């Protein structure tokens, strides 16, 4: 096929993909508009479960956004060439995912029309307000970082920009984890371990998302990814997934040690219905054990498809984990009078139920669509596809 013909087909395919993603985004906006005009009464959220599915999507994307930048950090900060070639794509994905996540978070507000208020009134004691600054700064720093990588004249500064971005992203994920960690009221939160746990979650989710997007891009462009590259990434992914498991175990063990937390742990681990199922089946089995086993398997693990499937499972497990953390944490009733049985018209002392509604789901998916749309367009207009020197890579991978 000559170049012109390829370009034509490729161009049409791009518009088809962009159109499809655009539609997903539009549906998301439509859902948000519906929620805003009718009020949150049309969602599954209540005065008991105040944060719902949109927050699961938003937190996943925000956490993954900071994690996906790790690929760039490993390249720039720690000087690994295979990762360095992927640094621009990693920066782009970071920006795209954060934009998608924040859009979902913003459109779920009770008053999304007051976004400007959130930008002009700051309570600096609030970790949320701090996050507004960290998120905005993240966009700026990563944009500068990408610029230093893509503009030849700026290459010299790339390392410094990369280092700042790395520090900034650690602060950002710490703050995201602290949104929950600083909630003294609820048994599921109020724990310092949530901040490092969110950082390690971001490593895992971010790398999984990166692998998925990268594989799709290579497939889309009819390119073949050097298996050696994927092999290196898969070991890292397995390590990250294992680290998330470690933090999860520590988190629950800490809770189990405190007698006052026993009832909550009983709820999540044993008789919490959907939350227990999501924890054991979704997070632990599908999202952790299976992918780790697949990735570390001597023969299966070497297969590209296995790596891609494992990454997908880790993403699925990530959603399950955040659902359990965010919604499961709210479903367990607040304990106002320890040792007493409580009941009221406001559902004191009772497990709260949450039935996510379609608009919430569509809003969340719209956010993902937005992240992918930004990526698709940016990849088309600028050179974000990893530029590997293939021979060099294979040689390096073998010696490494």
């Amino acid at each position: 096929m000559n170049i012109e013909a390829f370009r034509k087909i490729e161009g049409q395919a791009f518009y088809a993909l962009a159109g499809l993603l655009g539609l997903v985004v539009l549906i998301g906006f439509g859902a948000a508009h519906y929620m805003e005009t009718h009020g949150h009464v049309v969602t599954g959220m209540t005065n008991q479960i105040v944060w719902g599915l949109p927050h699961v999507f938003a937190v996943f994307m925000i956490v993954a956004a900071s994690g996906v930048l790790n690929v760039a950090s490993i390249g720039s900060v720690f000087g690994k060439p295979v990762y360095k070639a992927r640094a621009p794509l990693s920066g782009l994905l970071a920006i795209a995912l954060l934009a998608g996540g924040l859009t979902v978070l913003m459109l779920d507000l009770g008053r999304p029309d007051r976004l400007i208020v959130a930008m002009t009134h700051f309570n600096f004691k609030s970790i949320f307000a701090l996050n507004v600054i960290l998120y905005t700064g993240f966009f700026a720093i990563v944009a500068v970082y990408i610029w230093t990588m893509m503009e030849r004249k700026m290459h010299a500064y790339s390392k410094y920009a990369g280092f700042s971005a790395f520090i900034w992203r650690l602060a950002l994920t710490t703050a995201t984890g602290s949104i929950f960690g600083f909630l003294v009221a609820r048994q599921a939160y109020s724990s310092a371990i949530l901040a490092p746990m969110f950082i390690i979650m971001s490593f895992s989710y971010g790398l999984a998302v990166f692998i998925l997007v990268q594989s799709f891009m290579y497939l889309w462009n009819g390119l073949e990814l050097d298996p050696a590259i994927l092999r290196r990434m898969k070991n890292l992914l397995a390590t990250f997934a294992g680290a998330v498991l470690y933090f999860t175990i520590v988190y629950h063990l800490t809770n189990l040690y405190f007698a006052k937390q026993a009832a909550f742990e009983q709820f999540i681990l044993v008789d919490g219905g959907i939350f227990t199922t999501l924890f054991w089946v979704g997070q632990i089995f599908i999202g952790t054990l299976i992918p780790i086993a697949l990735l570390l398997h001597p023969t299966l693990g070497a297969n590209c498809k296995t790596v891609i499937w494992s990454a997908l499972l880790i993403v699925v497990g990530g959603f399950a984990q955040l659902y359990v953390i965010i919604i499961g944490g709210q479903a367990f009733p607040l304990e106002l009078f320890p040792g007493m049985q409580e009941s009221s018209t406001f559902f004191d002392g009772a497990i709260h139920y949450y039935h996510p509604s379609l608009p919430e789901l569509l809003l969340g998916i719209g956010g993902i669509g937005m992240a992918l749309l930004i990526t698709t367009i940016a990849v088309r207009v600028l050179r974000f596809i990893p530029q590997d020197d293939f021979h060099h890579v294979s040689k390096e991978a073998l010696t490494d």
Partner: protein
Amino acid sequence: MSNSMDKTPENNSPDKKRRQFIGYSAAMAGLAIAPGVTLFDLAHGRAPEEAASSKVRWGMLIDSGKCASGCNDCVSACGTENGFSGSRETDSQWIRKVEIKDLRIGQSHSLPMMCQHCEHPPCVDVCPTGASFKRADGIVLVDRHICIGCRYCMMACPYKARSFVHEELHDQNPDVPRGKGCVESCTLCVHRIDRGGQPACADACTAAGHNAILFGDLNDPNSEISKRVATLATTQVRADLGLNVGVRYQGI
């Protein structure tokens, strides 16, 4: 943070005329509620143009021994005053009756639960815009003009005192603005307090002869509430959090 929000622009030109007008309106007020004047003076002695002061700390003492299980007088009075009803999961409840039972000894109590008006309110700490704030006299409020409806305060409140307005509202009480997309909670009937009254729940409880809710100034050593807090065994709910709440309970 609320301190910096408290800063308002320095007095500007309209204020001269305003003071005149205040004079007139104060005089008119005096005439209009001649019988109420004594109440006004005794209760607070604060003129309309005078700002709430930190010399005062409003609080309530709830005697669960006098609070009957099944009695809902305070809750309905609150609903009437502030304009809400219903007990769906999406409906606002600024005050609710909680029935508690000690499983070890089988003893039961009934008590109203609402915003505890903490000295160190977690909702104020977490609010990103400063919409959640504590007034000088200890009343914790939501400034709906800058509330963006993020519901972080609802996550942070240990008492589940806050509600989110899930749908459009109509026919609000002119003194109690409420609307879709913002978070709200017990205001301690601040509009009544500013005019020398006391919260609707306390009024209703007294009017019905239960006398389970005592409202007053916790900072005034001579107030009834201070005397009782000083002499009786009273409880702060979730005292472990060290929030120094304004609503105290006795008999639990």
